[in-house]
């Protein structure tokens, strides 16, 4: 063997060995679903403890599959997942927050969902669509957090306003009445910039008929609808109905309960928070779908269940995902965690039918709500929106801000 041939053959061997070891996890050693195995799943915050309960129930029915739930804090999960992806130490499955989806799809670490095993029509469209890139779904919706409007019904009565605000006009009127007739300091809570402010504005954008990304996949943030939504958002600050100043860590619940800020938008978890932290408010507040302009369209957050490409337990992961997303478990999950089922059929289960008025509002919102499109650079995209909102809240011209926002986000997509 000549020297070159020798080194070539060594190179080939090494390359093959490398290729084999790197693919070993994803291709070769798949454990069948009926073999004895341990399935590792990362879950966030409170969900981890609750998931353990339901996972134990699953193991009782399927003794071969032991589910190990690893709790990870919401604040660190993003970094932990990225580090694990870099180190190749990802678990088999994870709970994935809706806005993180795009990034991990881009990283190429997620196993596409087998559409023969899961039917997209079983789920609310927004929850499913938030996981789809180029026609391929990468996660199965687990629970859905639609945003809605919470308001103090007792103070509305005091201010002489009947019924829930259904339109933007009603909303303005109610905010004004709160401030002028019911002694509230502010009419409504809208976060004027800083992390998370986009959450307050997107309902305005969607209700005006606008979108974050247009049909061409480019940002649509300078559309007339987006400008209209920015203008409406800005009005609350111009008119002194919302506080321009925001301090990190602000908890609206305290001010809501004292009546200083009698209106805010948030997700379904607040129902539970009210019951636990402000029981004296019982009967003094109501929740209603986000007020409509062209339509009443909220957005959906929440979490999906993903399986990682390198997992050796994909079959078991699929079984467990099926279990967690079937109507019966989803209803059980609602009982444990009070988060809303992403599976439509689960809403016919008794636990949800008995959920009362607030739950019906969220059910209604979920039907019309839309997703945050999965974007690899969502973090940056959202910060751009937040910067623009801060400018508008401080009096900048909405149309001009929208133009700048459009320009600064164009490079982040596609």
């Amino acid at each position, binding site marked *: 063997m000549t020297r070159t041939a020798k080194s070539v053959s060594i190179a080939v061997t090494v390359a093959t060995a490398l290729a084999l070891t790197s693919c070993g996890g994803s291709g070769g050693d798949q454990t069948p679903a009926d073999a004895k195995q341990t399935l590792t799943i990362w879950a966030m915050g409170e969900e981890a403890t609750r998931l353990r309960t339901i996972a134990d129930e699953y193991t009782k029915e399927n003794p071969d599959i032991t589910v190990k739930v690893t709790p990870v804090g919401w604040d660190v999960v993003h970094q932990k997942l990225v580090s694990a992806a870099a180190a190749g130490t990802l678990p088999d499955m994870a709970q994935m927050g809706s806005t993180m989806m795009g990034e991990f799809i881009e990283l190429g670490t997620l196993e596409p969902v087998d559409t023969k095993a899961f039917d997209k029509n079983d789920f609310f469209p927004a929850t499913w669509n938030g996981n789809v890139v180029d026609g391929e779904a990468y996660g199965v919706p687990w629970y859905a957090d639609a945003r809605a409007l919470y308001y103090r019904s007792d103070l509305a009565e005091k201010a002489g306003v009947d019924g829930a605000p259904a339109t933007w006009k009603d909303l303005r009127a109610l905010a004004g009445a709160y401030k002028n007739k019911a002694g509230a300091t502010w009419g409504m809570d809208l976060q004027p910039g800083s992390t998370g402010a986009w959450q307050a504005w997107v309902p305005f954008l969607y209700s005006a008929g606008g979108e974050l990304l247009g049909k061409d996949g480019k940002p649509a943030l300078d559309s007339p609808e987006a400008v209209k939504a920015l203008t409406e958002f800005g009005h609350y600050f111009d008119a002194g109905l919302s506080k*321009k*100043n*925001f301090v990190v*860590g602000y908890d609206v619940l305290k001010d809501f309960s004292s009546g200083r800020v009698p209106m805010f938008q948030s997700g379904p978890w607040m129902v539970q928070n009210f019951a636990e932290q402000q029981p004296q408010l019982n009967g003094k507040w109501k929740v209603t779908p986000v007020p409509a302009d062209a339509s009443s369209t909220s957005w959906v957050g929440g979490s999906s269940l993903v399986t990682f490409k390198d997992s050796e337990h994909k079959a078991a992961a699929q079984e467990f995902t099926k279990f967690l997303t079937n109507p019966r478990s989803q209803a059980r999950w609602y009982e444990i965690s009070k988060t809303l089922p992403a599976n439509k059929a689960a809403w016919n289960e008794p636990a949800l039918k008995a959920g009362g008025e607030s739950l019906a509002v969220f059910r209604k919102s979920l039907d019309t709500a839309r997703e945050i499109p999965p974007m690899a650079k969502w973090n940056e995209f959202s910060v751009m929106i937040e910067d623009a909102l801060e400018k508008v809240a401080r009096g900048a011209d909405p149309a001009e801000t929208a133009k700048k926002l459009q320009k600064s986000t164009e490079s982040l997509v596609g």
Partner: protein
Amino acid sequence: MSTTAAKAPDDRDRTRPTGSASRAGDGKDRGAPPRRRDRLSTQNLAGWLYSTPFLSLFLTFMAFPVVATLVMSFTDFGLRNVTDPFSAEFIGLDNYTRLVEDEKFVRALLNTGLFVVLGVPLTIGCGLVAAVLLNSGIDRMRTFFRVGFYAPVVTAIVAVAVIWRFVLDPAEGLIAGLAGQLGLKSPDFLASETLALPSLVVMAVWRNMGTAMVLFLAGLQAIPTEVREAARIDGAGVLQEFRGITVPLLRPTMLYVAVMTTIGFLNVFEEPFVMTDGGPSDSTLTISLHMYRQGFDFFHMGYASAMAYVLFVIVLAVTLLQLRLLKDKTR
């Protein structure tokens, strides 16, 4: 007098592994080249073995990241490269030229400069005053006050944030309450573009003055009483004694405190991170915070690395300048 003045810088050098001691060693070797080969001889093997734990830790956790960051700063290392680091492309100085055009970076640079210009003199001043008072003025409860002033240094930033949010809260905070007693209205410190940064400076000074105080106390106690006595016999007043005796003899301590405090303030991160998140309108965005966001929120690792090196150069330049300006000119 000269013995004490010489003693303090020795203490300082011992705390800095790369100080003059190691440099002196290099100089000696250069004078006697044949000894160099002996370094790896069997007699030295034991020494090398003893240093292995340190060396391996240093190389893995210090030297490697430092070099990797430098290399990364010339690449477009981003999210995609996390799973496949070697596919990052070299883009030369692009990251550095982009920094100049980055409005937020320029803003962060200015804010950090303000932090340093306001914070460092205040920290040193407060630390020095506290130390002088504790050294001579207060006899009773000395330990109590020492612990009191030092406590913020060792308190977790999260707890500090809770306390300061309460202090600065415009509705029911400590300052608002006091202002209310006087019939005044407290501004919303953290939400105001002009007041947020000064508020954080005050908080940072409060957190850091304990360190300065402890160091100054040690320096003050090293000043021999004879010198003070001599000054007093010569008729020096309190202020004259302070200016003529205390400050000059504290110079070595002063240099150390100034350098460390300045480095601390150039790297300021925790205060804006927990209190304002850089807002409102980036008025409290610092270089470190901007870097953190670019690196860990957006995964622009290459860009963040470039920023880290710019900050490093600034720290180095400022430190060298201070060493030059504050060095002991009496020797």
